[in-house]
């Protein structure tokens, strides 16, 4: 019986009494930052040792045979970005698509671009920086070299299919391979190099099929789950039985002699086993006797949202015109509503997996992390190695939708490999994946608005409470995820602070500011609307669970509240929800997507609820929502059409129309795929998904206890309306449609029934309760 130092201390404090234990160690240290997806800046600059981001050779290499290799720090998660980046380089360099090879996220090879997250790959790599600018710089360099070689001015040359020729005399030509011949460019990225205008595109902007599809459907594709290293062993981890439980003792004798056992590994509260085969590792992990201290306990789920309001908070103000209370008091009509959003999980289809090979002071990791560079620096901390001795190689995992178990399982594999000095593969069990995720945040959101005599909004106040703990590990906080914490690292600290300082700059990264606000900060309007009486106050509080970015983090929750409340206001003054929105919007691109979606959906101008609705039985309705994602990263509007069974409370979504303006479209079919997936994932989250827990632990641990729509059901029609803005900047498209689904569906339920459901998910019970409450 080994008693760790921490366990002894915890036991001494607890005396094995749960009550005492709660008193002394119940203070979970937590922290939160809104807009975690853009936290690269917060976590510091590039990790040392990365290929310099300002040098062309970090991005592009051309072999003697003319094959182009592009290196990128933005990786394929299933969103199609590898295809789009390959198109981009083929376009800028004027080579065929299949002459470009893309290397994604390898800390020994690719430039450090922090995360592949937050719908930032298009803004980062498809405008005037990074990969796109590398392509333009390389093309111009090749043209200059060809001009020297052929003795003809650049403006008389043309480039096509990797060959530069003289316009007037195409027989005079030279290939890229001949010009570069495997040598380096030795050039900085040229900010003045001309990117091709979308009107000239022949590869980018086209629905180029994904090159990974044939491999996927024939089982040739290598996921991280398929990585096999010679001599590789298999690990399993044993997570605590309750939140906050720590290791009191591990009885290694309990598994002695089991087939395949290589080692039992204990490091503080991290416990795992290594065996020759994965099935053996699972048997050993199940049989291993561990005594855990009692957990720290969890607050009741029944009154959780009320409790959240009373926690010490770190406050933030996004906008404040300082006259909101006064305007609300003076308004002839005042409306209030509270919206609730649960913790939801990434729930990746495949449980997370990684392979680590740690030998002495060197480590090689095959990981599906969204941040190879931070995986490098924080795994180094977990292992006690120098970061420069850790090599992280991205291999695609199961779709993650944000911070799933990919980072934590990489620590798991690394710790187990270090303990045995051999390569170890770890794949989490379904329960380990789901019970210890960094969940998408729960949200409590209060909305208040005052209307003038004409029904126009004169003041709107938004106040939210957001419980959070942990986050992405960033460059130096492995304790932000479960394995790091178990191995002895603390999550980022939480320090309450209230009241918040006035904002010095406008930041609507979290879509905390409704689309209808003027967004006045520093004497300048930054928002997409016209409402001048405006305030947004956010209270960040401690969460009992880990939290982290889940596809459209905070943006989805805030938009659900804002867009449903906007509908409530329109209904209050008997206005058409479309007309009422347009009345309060000023951004022309946002107005355009709203008009495009409603036109395509054949929106009938009339107030909600539908005056012709049936009082009982099945009734149909439509709902609208819109947003400028992250305040600057993609315009989108959605119309959802639903049927509500008023006897059962069951909601069936029949049709979803999404209009998107994300700048110049890189691949219309890829964009359509993202719109479809986002809309349906958003629908699943709106109607079914909610993390549950008891006094000790999370109880959503598999697909029977956490609900998701299956592949086969009466799938709604999903229609994308793509506005291709070729003269604008490229913005993100991976999180636009999902951000609107809950709001549009909630508004459609109201339109169909006159019942407003303000709590996600819209389960039949909650819909029925709302139906009864409408009177």
């Amino acid at each position, binding site marked *: 019986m080994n008693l760790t130092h921490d366990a002894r201390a915890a036991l001494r404090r607890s005396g094995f009494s749960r009550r005492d234990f709660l008193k002394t160690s119940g203070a979970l240290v937590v922290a939160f930052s809104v807009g975690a997806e853009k936290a690269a800046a917060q976590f510091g600059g590039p990790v040392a040792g990365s290929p310099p981001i300002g040098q062309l050779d970090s991005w592009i290499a051309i072999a003697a045979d003319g094959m182009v290799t592009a290196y990128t720090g933005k990786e394929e*998660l*299933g969103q*199609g970005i590898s295809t789009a980046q390959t198109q981009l380089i083929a376009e800028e360099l004027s080579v065929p698509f299949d002459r470009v090879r893309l290397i994604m996220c390898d800390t020994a090879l690719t430039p450090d671009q922090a995360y592949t997250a937050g719908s930032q790959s298009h803004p980062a790599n498809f405008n005037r920086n990074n990969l796109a600018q590398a392509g333009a710089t390389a093309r111009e360099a090749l043209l200059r070299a060809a001009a020297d070689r052929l003795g003809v001015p650049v403006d008389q040359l043309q480039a096509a299919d990797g060959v530069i020729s003289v316009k007037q005399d195409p027989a005079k030509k030279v290939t890229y391979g001949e010009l570069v011949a495997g040598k380096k460019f030795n050039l900085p990225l040229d900010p003045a190099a001309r990117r091709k205008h979308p009107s000239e595109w022949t590869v980018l902007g086209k629905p180029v*099929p*994904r090159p*990974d*599809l*044939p*491999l*996927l*459907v*024939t*089982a*040739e*594709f*290598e*996921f991280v*789950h*398929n990585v*096999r290293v010679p001599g590789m062993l*298999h690990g399993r981890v044993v997570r605590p039985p309750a939140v906050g439980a720590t290791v009191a003792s591990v009885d290694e004798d309990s598994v002695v002699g089991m*087939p395949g056992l290589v080692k039992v590994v204990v490091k503080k509260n991290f416990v795992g086993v290594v065996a020759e*085969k*994965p*099935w*053996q590792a699972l048997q050993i992990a199940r049989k291993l006797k561990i005594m855990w201290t009692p957990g720290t306990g969890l607050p009741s789920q029944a009154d959780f949202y009320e409790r959240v309001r009373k926690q010490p908070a770190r406050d933030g103000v996004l906008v404040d015109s300082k006259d909101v209370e006064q305007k609300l008091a003076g308004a002839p009509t005042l409306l209030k509503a509270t919206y609730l959003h649960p913790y939801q999980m990434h*729930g*990746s*289809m*495949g*449980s997370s997996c990684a392979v680590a090979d740690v030998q002495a002071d060197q480590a090689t990791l095959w990981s599906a992390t969204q941040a190879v560079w931070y995986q490098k620096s924080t795994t180094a901390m977990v292992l006690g190695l120098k970061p420069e001795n850790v090599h992280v190689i991205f291999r*695609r*995992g*199961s*779709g993650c*939708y944000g911070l799933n178990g990919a980072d934590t399982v990489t620590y798991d594999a690394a710790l187990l490999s270090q303990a045995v000095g051999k390569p170890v593969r770890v*794949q989490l*069990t*379904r329960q380990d994946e789901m019970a210890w995720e960094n969940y998408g945040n729960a949200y409590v959101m209060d909305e208040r608005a005052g209307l003038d005599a004409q029904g126009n909004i004169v003041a709107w106040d938004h106040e939210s409470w957001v419980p959070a703990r942990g986050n992405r590990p960033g460059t130096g906080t492995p304790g932000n995820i479960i394995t790091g914490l178990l191995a002895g690292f603390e999550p980022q600290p939480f320090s309450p602070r209230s009241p918040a300082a006035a904002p010095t700059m406008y930041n609507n990264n979290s879509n905390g500011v409704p689309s209808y606000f003027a967004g006045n900060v520093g004497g300048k309007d930054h928002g997409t609307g016209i409402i001048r009486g405006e305030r947004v106050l956010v209270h960040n509080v401690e969460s009992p669970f880990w939290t982290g970015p889940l596809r459209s983090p905070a943006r989805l929750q805030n938009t659900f509240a804002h867009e449903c409340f906007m509908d409530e206001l329109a209904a209050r003054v008997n206005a058409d929800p479309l007309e009422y929105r347009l009345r309060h919007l000023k951004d022309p691109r946002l107005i355009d997507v709203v008009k495009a979606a409603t036109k395509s959906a054949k929106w009938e101008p009339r107030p909600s609820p539908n005056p012709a609705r049936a009082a009982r039985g099945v009734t149909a309705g439509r709902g609208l929502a819109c947003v400028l994602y992250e305040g600057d990263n993609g315009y989108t509007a959605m119309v959802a059409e639903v049927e509500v069974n008023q006897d059962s409370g069951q909601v069936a979504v029949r049709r979803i129309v999404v209009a998107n303006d994300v700048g110049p479209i890189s691949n219309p*079919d890829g964009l359509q*795929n993202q719109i*479809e*997936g*986002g*809309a*349906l*994932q958003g629908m*699943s989250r709106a109607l079914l998904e909610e993390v549950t827990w008891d006094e000790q632990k999370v109880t959503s641990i*598999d*697909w*029977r206890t956490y609900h*998701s*729509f*299956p*592949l*086969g*059901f*009466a*799938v709604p029609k*999903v229609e994308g309306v793509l506005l291709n803005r070729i003269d604008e900047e490229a913005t993100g498209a991976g999180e636009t449609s999902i951000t609107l689904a809950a709001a549009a569906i909630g508004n459609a339920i109201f339109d169909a029934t006159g019942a407003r459901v303000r709590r996600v998910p819209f389960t039949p019970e909650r819909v029925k309760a709302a139906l009864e409450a409408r009177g």
Partner: protein
Amino acid sequence: MSAISLKVNGRIHRVDVDPATPLLYVLSDDLDLRGPKFGCGLGQCGACTVIVKGQAIRSCITPVRSVEGAEITTLEGIGTIEKPHPLQKAFVAEQAAQCGFCVSGVIMTAKAFLDKNPKATEPEIQQAMSGVLCRCFTNVRMLRAIRQAGEEMAR
């Protein structure tokens, strides 16, 4: 441990494993096949689906001894890039994937169903695919691809 003989994609393999080992572990760890995937290990998500004697089964909860000698087909066994099965062809034509982790289980589930129900209606296909998950929610394209493949298979 005991020696077990398996017939996978037309080839006989002899493996020495604990006979209680789920078939999935043998396929992916002993035979190194990339098709069947571990999604949940509980028979809930369908990622591990393979076809045994014409039936789609969940290989993650099927002890290997129970399929000894039976004809086992994985995604690898139904076609290749050069000679794709109609389902593989349709999934590429429809660009029916995002992360692609579920694709193997989806195609194998659809194949077992379409082989027996070549004239299946839309609701029947939906029903047949209701025990399989795609968390990227590529439902629209995958169901369309299955329908198209069904039409070709029925010809």
